[in-house]
């Protein structure tokens, strides 16, 4: 791993950190003003920054007020909308108040609650990232692939707007510029495995970029690399997976799927375009009810695909009709367990119980080297806005909606990846087979 912070150019880095501090203070001031926060710290430094800004990051800073004034009201609105339903425990887990944690979150507090990012823009955050952070925390962009593509696209803008400070090199400094952007996205919503893998690859590209390259060329090369990554690891991979998975759907089959995976949706639409006659059972569950979106896109093709829509409790009576189960994944771990939308494990287990083959559709860039034993070690809670009928604030009831769960490898028949159909137990040998040391 390259050291992101250059040790040598000390004078420059000091002046830079000063500039950063100023910008930081300025940014904070803007948040405070926009969100009408009560604190009034660092007013002075904020004014200083206001008077003497635009030293190193001209366009970035200039753009910001406009875009933020666009964004902040929505964040404020969302937070005020959430306010009545926000529990004491939720606030406590946020770390925003010292109120007593309520009972439900005592076990699950490590999942963390999504924070409203408008309140805590720290450092020099690019407007594209601020916007993306809001879209993440509002679940406007949701799903591993969409988030990864959106992040990489936003990073392309950030990289293009980036200017290497004097006496510094892009390959050494850009990452220090990107780190707070990444941190900002992570505070908006925990980082997905896909984003982690993509960012790791991006870091590798940045540290490997040629020092002698003119800055614009280096930036263009990086953006090209990002485009290639999106194309090779996501878009083309999806096409290959579609081809492979469609072969397993036969005429007269009943395909069961859970919630909505962009990849499963593409597979089903492709199978339909190939004139396969099949019907789909969409199983869905609260709080996100993503299956409705899938149902809409499946029934709006011509002729519409025959669909059955049911909620998770109806699954046992429907699984017997299914010939094949198609599932999407958030990530796939080294021990073969699948981290996916909460409820997936139940579908997979029930399918195994009824000897229905379960095909998991997943690109190789979703593989993670970590081991996942259950859904409790790592998870994420759905924000309160997805549970409108939350109990009254005086009740002892706590609403808890984990977004993901972990499906054991034994419940998955096959994983469809762009390198072929493989059993989930063999995924750890894929990177090696592809000649990569990382995923």
């Amino acid at each position, binding site marked *: 791993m390259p050291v992101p912070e250059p040790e040598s150019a000390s004078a420059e880095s000091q002046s830079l950190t000063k500039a950063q501090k100023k910008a930081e203070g300025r940014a904070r001031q803007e948040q405070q003003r926009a969100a009408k926060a009560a604190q009034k710290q660092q007013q002075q430094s904020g004014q200083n920054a206001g008077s003497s800004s635009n030293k190193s990051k001209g366009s970035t800073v200039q753009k910001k007020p406009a875009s933020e004034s666009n964004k902040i009201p929505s964040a404020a609105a969302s937070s005020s909308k959430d306010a009545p339903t926000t529990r004491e425990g939720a606030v406590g887990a946020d770390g925003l108040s010292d109120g007593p944690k309520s009972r439900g979150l005592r076990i699950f507090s490590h999942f963390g609650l999504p924070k409203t990012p408008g309140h805590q823009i720290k450092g020099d955050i690019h407007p594209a990232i601020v916007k993306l952070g809001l879209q993440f925390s509002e679940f406007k962009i949701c799903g591993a692939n969409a988030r990864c593509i959106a992040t990489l696209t936003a990073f392309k803008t950030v990289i293009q707007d980036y200017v290497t400070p004097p006496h510094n090199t892009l390959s050494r400094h850009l990452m220090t510029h990107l780190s707070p952007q990444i941190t900002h996205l992570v505070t908006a919503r925990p980082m997905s495995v896909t984003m982690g893998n993509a960012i790791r690859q991006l870091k590798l590209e940045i540290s490997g970029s040629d020092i002698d390259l003119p800055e614009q060329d280096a930036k263009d090369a990086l953006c090209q690399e990002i485009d290639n990554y999106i194309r090779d690891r996501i878009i083309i991979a999806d096409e290959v997976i579609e081809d492979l998975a469609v072969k397993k759907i036969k005429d007269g089959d009943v395909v069961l799927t859970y919630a909505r995976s962009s990849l499963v949706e593409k597979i089903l639409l492709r199978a339909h375009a190939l004139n396969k006659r099949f019907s789909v059972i969409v199983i869905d569950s609260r709080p996100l009810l993503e299956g409705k979106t899938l149902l809409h896109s499946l029934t709006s093709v011509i002729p519409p695909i025959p669909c059955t829509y049911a909620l998770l409790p109806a699954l046992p009576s429907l699984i017997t009709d299914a010939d094949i189960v198609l599932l999407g994944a958030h990530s796939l771990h080294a021990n073969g367990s699948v981290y996916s939308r909460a409820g997936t494990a139940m579908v997979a287990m029930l399918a195994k119980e009824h000897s229905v083959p379960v095909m998991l559709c997943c690109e190789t860039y979703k593989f993670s080297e970590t081991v996942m034993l259950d859904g409790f070690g790592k998870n994420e809670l759905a924000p309160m806005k997805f549970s409108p009928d939350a109990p009254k604030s005086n009740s002892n009831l706590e609403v808890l909606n984990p977004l993901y769960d972990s499906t054991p490898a034994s419940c998955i028949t096959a994983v469809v990846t762009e390198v*072929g159909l493989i*059993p989930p137990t063999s995924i750890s040998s894929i990177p090696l087979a592809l000649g990569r040391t990382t995923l």
Partner: protein
Amino acid sequence: MDDFQIYKSYQRLLKNEDLSTPLAAILALTEMMEQSNAGTMFELLTELKGAAEALSRQSLNPIGLKAGCELFIEFITLFPHDAASFSELKTELIRQGQRYAEQALAYRAKIAELAFDFIKDDSVVSSGFMFIDWHDEIDLHIQILTHSYSRVVLQTLLVAHKRKRISVFVTEARPRGMGIKTAEMLTAAGIPCTVVLDSAVAYAIDKVDFVLMGSEAVVESGGLVNAVGSNQIAIIAKAANKPFYALAESYKFHRMFPLSQYDLPSHNPGVLSFPQTMSARARPASSGLPSKASSVLSDNGSPIRITQEDIARNNPDVDYTRPDLISLVFSDVGSLTPEGVSQYLVGMFAG
């Protein structure tokens, strides 16, 4: 060489009793290369792929054959192109193909040695039994039954017989009835051997120490494609907690992932179909598959007869055994767990 010719040479090669389908396919492809006048690697590969396609199209049960073709084409694709001219490279490839087939014949001895260590001598305990299902690896329509037996299982048993006391149950393996052939070979070698009915496997399983199974192909899930009946034996062995060992040379490893029995390439709509008269009249639940005596009359008065050919036509040649039913796969690359097989296959072909 056209499609018909390559199939002819494939069939001719199969007459050699040592050659199993994947090896015969590899040799047929090398023969095609000898006659090919392709001028570039691309042309050659296109020809080879076409030939492999033609072979599998003409064969009734192309699974084993496909494994061989796939291996050979992969080998040619990855072969370093450092020869001075293409014709030299081609000669080299042909030589490599032939040498591989020669070397592959020694794999069975290697597997026999590996499996040998897992066969316990029953010097102390009461008699040990092995339970074997075997099948021919040659397509049905090639009527050369005398050559057909699971060579690797047989060789393993013969090796084991020299140094340990074993006795063997062999299933009849209907509809081809090849189990009888194995029983004869084993008896001739002095191995105590009994033929059991396919339907008596569950009865016999408690007397058995482990199950030894040949294979047509080992697929990417780590599962097994083998003569029909293998799957039910595996299920019974699992239920009785008996180890189920599969023997497979590495050229039978096949990059295919069947999700279920009906996902096999050998499955066709004719298998397990209901005869027209039956489906029109009888309810599916009370189908006429169990043989009815010829005295039973149909609606129009003609006697209903169900012949062996009818039964064979409606039944599959091979079935698929899930990886979780298999204890170990012995192959020339080592004793592998089913997961190990799939990792080996991913490593070989995924790149």
